């Protein structure tokens, strides 16, 4: 967010007087601190000793370095890595398919030459307001599509997200009609017009949807919880660990299941922080790495569109 503001306002900043500059950068610093401090607190607390966190509360610095929380999160490293693998595959395949389908629907319903576009749009919009609920969906997936306990159910479950269609439809609607006419004159097919003419022009829209779609797939424990027995993505694996805290306390007090946790304390306070880090770290890495592409897409789109 801050990067975007910076690029847009670059020319403006050069024109600022020193006093205005100080104010401007001061404001940015305050915003940055407001974002950074909670995050630093999260990271630092996850590496701290649980008893100190309990006594002093969470702080944005490490209190008595300890890896106890991560020892529990990575107690079964094989399972954990397999969960990451499941999540990565499902997120990559699911997001790609999600973008492809949403872009195709968004493109076709945005074209005024498509006569049935209002009816088709209504069909999709209808499902936002009226939902059949869990039971019919379960029956459909399990009995009629035979998707139970398959990779396909994790990928296909959230594959059509209507708000994504609406976002993309609005972006496609902004593409000048003359471009479509020109493409038609040059003999481009509908597919070619969609993917080679219109889609590159709405890169910011695609970037936004990629962002949401990746987050949707990555943070979805429910599809896996309901529809699979053996495939456990990270989101589900970690949500199970939070349930495990209670069990650990119980187990320890009963003196069974010799858990390999240093000391006698279960780091239940820091464990939640460690779980948050384990879920968000890969996303953080990916988005930091690709942030410049998003920014470029957003900026170039703003000029051309």
């Amino acid at each position, binding site marked *: 967010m801050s990067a975007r503001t910076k690029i847009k306002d670059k020319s403006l900043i050069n024109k600022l007087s020193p006093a205005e500059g100080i104010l401007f950068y001061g404001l940015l610093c305050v915003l940055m601190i407001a974002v950074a401090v909670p995050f630093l607190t999260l990271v630092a607390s996850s590496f701290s000793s649980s008893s100190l966190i309990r006594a002093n509360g969470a702080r944005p610095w490490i209190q008595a370095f300890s890896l106890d929380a991560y020892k529990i999160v990575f107690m079964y490293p094989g*399972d954990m890595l397999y969960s990451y693998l499941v999540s990565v595959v499902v997120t990559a395949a699911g997001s790609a398919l999600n973008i492809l389908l949403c872009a195709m629907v968004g493109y076709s319903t945005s074209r005024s030459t498509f006569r049935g576009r209002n009816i088709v749009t209504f069909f999709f919009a209808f499902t936002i307001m009226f939902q059949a609920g869990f039971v019919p*969906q379960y029956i459909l997936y399990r009995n009629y599509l035979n998707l139970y306990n398959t990779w396909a159910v994790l990928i296909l479950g959230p594959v059509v997200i209507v708000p994504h269609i609406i976002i993309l439809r609005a972006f496609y609607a902004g593409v000048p009609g003359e471009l479509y006419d020109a493409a038609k004159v040059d003999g481009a097919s509908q597919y070619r017009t969609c993917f080679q003419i219109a889609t590159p022009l709405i890169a910011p829209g695609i970037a936004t949807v990629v962002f949401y779609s990746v987050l949707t797939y990555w943070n979805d424990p429910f599809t896996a919880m309901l529809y699979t027995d053996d495939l456990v993505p990270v989101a589900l694996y970690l949500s199970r660990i939070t349930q*495990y805290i209670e069990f650990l306390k119980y187990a320890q007090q009963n003196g069974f299941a010799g858990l390999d946790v240093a000391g006698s304390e279960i780091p239940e306070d820091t464990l939640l922080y460690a779980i948050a880090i384990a879920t968000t770290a890969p996303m953080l890495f990916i988005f930091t790495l690709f942030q410049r592409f998003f920014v470029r897409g957003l900026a170039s789109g703003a000029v051309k569109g």
Partner: protein
Amino acid sequence: MNGFFKKAFCIAFALAAALASAACVPSLGELEERYDDDGKQYELAYYLMYNDSNPPNDLKSVEARLNAALKAKLPDTTVKLTAYTIAEYTAKLSGAIAANVKFDICYTSPEVNPYLTNVQREAFLPLDYLLPTYAPETWAAIPENIWTQARVDGKIYASVNEQIFPRTYCYDARNATLITQFLNAAHPGTTTDTVNELGMDAFAFMEEYMAWLKANDRGAGGKISSIDTESALQNWFGYDNLGTGMSTPGVVDIEDGSYTVVNQYASQDYRNLIDTVYRWKSVGYIEEGVSVFDLTPESNWKPGYRRGNILKLSDPHYFTSYVIGTMNAISSTSKNPARAMKFIELLRTDAEIHNILQFGVEDVHYIKDPENPVRIAEQITGSGYNNAQFGWGLGCEFVSYLTPSQPADLWEQVKKINADTPVSPLVGFNFNVAAVKQKIADCKAVVNEFAPAFASAQFKNKDDKLAEFLSRLNAAGANEVVAEKQKQLDAYLAARGIAKA
């Protein structure tokens, strides 16, 4: 597939499934014939509940060991195990039942995989014929009034598991050393298991402990998070909620022979409870923003359970909701209910079968105590199976092996509590919610809005808020619910010939 058609298909299929299931409900006579065992090779599908956060990694070897043991004990039968964790069990089963998945046995209770809901969905078979025919020991072991408690419209739909039936009020002191020091100093001769014998008010005792911690500056001690309202109302004040849960108004004081249904939230006991919480907060025994406390609510005291930490604060009492707290049901999709019933009987009568499901395979998942054939010495960490904490859900807890920390006469103690505690005459009363279903839901919403905040002293002005709470409850229909409960209870008491005091 696009969203609209997906949903349209769903609706159509759901309707079709509902019609199909409504069309083929056989009469009881037909059912009983269908229930008999044909003696052919059969694979029982058992949805096992697994009391851990993750499903077991090594279910296969447990299944293999179980089937090897079954060869001699239940011929021509194999069991296919599917294990779901407690947290996910309800969702998984609700899906499987909705989709008419073929299975034979599952766990059910008032809360987890809810019994009444599933009976109404016709997910379970009535067992009135099967229980005495194929599970005579189970049928004989459970007292008649507990079977009555499990009846819905006169029929039993699940086999009740034998475990600790009465409930006892308790709190978890968390630190065995500190609580022992306190008891030695303030009440010599009393242990955590005999605090109830002091005859003190439970809250006065807790307050004394917290004051002692504070005065002697033991650690950060002397704090509590909140009072568990449900447990306090039931297990301490002795209010039976007649099976609707404590978040629905309408309870009967089990020690008062007048059998008057009252709104527990309008009672003096509830007002005193809130006053206690607020007093504790004002002196700093309740603190906000801290997640671990020296006293934590625990729903129920049991013998040999976290020895040294759990404060037994009351005497045990029977309550209608908890005598059917854990049960095994047979699915209406079962192709051989008689075989399923025989397996449920084996869980009770055969320690080997029971303990395979509880502890796994000997020397693979656990090591037995060489000196005691019914005690395990160690559960092997990371071995992939540990369902030790599910003994209470496997037919009969009394055949479970003991864990290293449990006393040798644990099951004798539990049996003694079951037998010695006077059974409340209310046990056997089934409240039919049909007439006030919506009002119950409305009242629950109001209770869930106010009660947790009162339990941790969150409201600034408690008197105004309590008045608001009660008027909102009345608006939601609390009085009608109470009246309906009273009406049905009166009819039950009259039919049983129980006189009101």
